[in-house]
């Protein structure tokens, strides 16, 4: 905490911060992908799987519904991503 110590501290802090930001960004990116996967999974379960749960197996109709649901969800993600990219702010 000497008179000249402050700027050095600040500089060192700045370097640390850049690294922290890089790791922070990587973390947010991973969290985003996990969140996307979980929402896709929950949403397609709601859309495709019969709520009474009479069977423990997925039947053929449910399986193809899941595949199409995942594919359409992915498409919506891309579509919305394009729209957000064209936004002036977000």
């Amino acid at each position, binding site marked *: 905490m000497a008179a000249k110590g402050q700027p050095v501290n600040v500089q060192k802090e700045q370097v640390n911060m850049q690294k922290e*930001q890089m790791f922070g960004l990587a973390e947010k990116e991973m969290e*985003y992908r996990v969140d996307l996967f979980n929402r896709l999974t929950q949403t397609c379960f709601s859309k495709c799987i019969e709520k009474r749960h009479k069977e423990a197996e997925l039947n053929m109709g449910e399986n193809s519904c899941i595949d199409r649901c995942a*594919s359409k969800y992915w498409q919506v*993600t891309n579509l919305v991503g394009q729209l957000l990219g064209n936004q002036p702010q977000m």
Partner: protein
Amino acid sequence: MDKSMLGDLDGLPEEDKMRMAAMVDQLQIRDSLRMYNSLVERCFTDCVDTFRRKTLDKQEESCVRRCAEKFLKHSMRVGMRFAELNQGVATPD
């Protein structure tokens, strides 16, 4: 989310101010990505209900577009109201 929402950084020492700003940046990034995911989930849930094909049909696609546009406009409007309410601005009924 608007940066001004996150409060005032004046009066802090330089080092802490930087750390606080970095924290705000991290929160904004996380919030933007979550908002993206929640927008996708909502518009998918509202607009897509048939699974006979694995690609969106024209109607679903335009529903998603309108839903997303509407949500962004809605979100901006709420943001303005939120800022006013935060500042205690009185508005007519």
